[in-house]
């Protein structure tokens, strides 16, 4: 697994949602806070994170992740 830092995660967010309005601090963001971060957007985001950090979420993890905080804690468990 590649090193995870909040800045690179922010880049994934910007690329996935093709959105330059992503705030500088993303720690408190959750699904619904960004345009296109709906359930399909969430799926796209998780696939992008898997590719970027070379990890794999299982079905259970995927179903529970709904925010940046969820993502960070899930990634921490995998580290």
């Amino acid at each position: 697994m590649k090193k995870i830092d909040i800045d690179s995660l922010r880049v994934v967010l910007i690329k996935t949602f093709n959105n330059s309005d992503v705030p500088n601090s993303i720690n408190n963001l959750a699904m619904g806070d960004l345009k296109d971060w709906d359930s399909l957007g969430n799926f796209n985001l998780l696939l992008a994170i898997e590719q970027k950090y070379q990890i794999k979420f299982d079905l259970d993890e995927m179903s529970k992740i709904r925010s940046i905080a969820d993502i960070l804690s899930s990634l921490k468990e995998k580290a």
Partner: protein
Amino acid sequence: MLVLFFEDIVPTVSFDLNFLSEKFSSLLKSISHRCNESNLPTVICWGKAFNVDPIRTAKKNTLEVQAYNWFLEQFYILLQKHKSLYFINLNQIYANKGYEKIFDDRNWYFAHCRVSSLGISTLANSVNAVLSRHFKASSKVLVLDCDNTIWGGVIGEDGIDRILLGQDGIGTAFVDFQKEIKKLVNEGVILVLSSKNNEDEVWNVFNNHPSMLIKRSDVVSWRINWTEKSDNIKSIADELDLGLDSFVFWDDNPLERDKIRSLLPQVNTIEMPDDVLKWPRIVKNLEYFAKFEVTTDDRNKTNQYHGRAKFVRDSSNTIDIHDYLKGINLCPVASNLSEALLGRAVQMCSKTNQYNLRTIRYSAEDLLKINSANNDFCFLINLSDNYGDHGMVALVCLKKVNEKVLFLDTLLMSCRILGRYLEAWIVSEIVRRAKKHGFEYIIGEYIATQRNIVAKDFFNTFGFSSLESSSEFYKEAEHLKFTKSGKHFIFNIKESTIPFLEIYEKN
């Protein structure tokens, strides 16, 4: 775009083959409907998410496979009916990467997405390839190096006996590489050589090496010398009258590739691995040359360009060009648009950049529409002469403005037959058709692009005079949406004459 997986539309627990056509005729009809309604391309992607096992298919096809094949057949029937419909067989494109990497059950149960990230990007790349070719014609010219490219070793040092070609191992890879090149030539790719060698040594290999598959007659033009390849390629482009963006460059030497990339960025320079064993497969899959269909015209391309090169050489030695042209048995034949000619007509619309008065890119549907108004209004011209049969080399589309006036909507010509004043004959053919339907005037428009300067003087040279925007004719034709920057011309059938037509009048 429609992505369909067999398992998602056919309930595989139990089903009856006989009900397929009943159940899915509406799906097929709606695809047909969409194709009839829109000129934009439609892409169907069809696949099967579950593989078949060897035991169940060892004696006969399972019901599932039979049903899957039924769909394949139906799609191929639709493909024949609709020119703008394309089909991607997902199982074939996925086979390269392997099913286990492509299908992702977690994605299916999480988001009803059958495939993995790799599956999505592979699908996207395939759709992109098909759509790019829909909008842009394939490359035309392949520039090849000789040493360590079509054979192993350096002819100037190793000699004809010791170059690697046709023996075991790597020598057979060079033969296979040549085999794939030969296939491209047969599909209409123009092969040229650019190689730093002594010319007679190269031709000695072509003429005398028993394993050479590429023949000297496959090579349309060559620059075998010690000059920079960028200069050589530019001069070949001038000679063939083709844009550098239709050139693909293959050279084993990374330095030469870098030079071409920086000096001639329009040329598509291929970056290949050092491992020659991988080359035959790479050539076979070169996207630059892939076409939807290979026409008869494509198959004759090498001959046509040989003929063209000879024509350029002969005519530059001739003092009176008119007498000379009269003596080469020019024989143009016009054919109205038909199903058999549609493919070539669309191809000409999409790739003729130079001799093209208005550069309107018509689809098959557009052309059929023009033809349905009057089937004398859309025709192609075949030209043959002492230099060979040049195939279908020009396309004309006409539109009615009113009872008296006809609009020359499209006139485009293949550059390989330029210099024969075929335009004069084409104008006479347009006039003949116009008279037949009672028209008295023909108006035309020239829209300048970066590439069509060669057609700039068509109207002035072949009997048309300028049409001012204040004239009645111009106003009548306004519904044709003239381009403001376009230049407009008129031909008076009763009064105007066609210069140079005598070249085509039989003695």
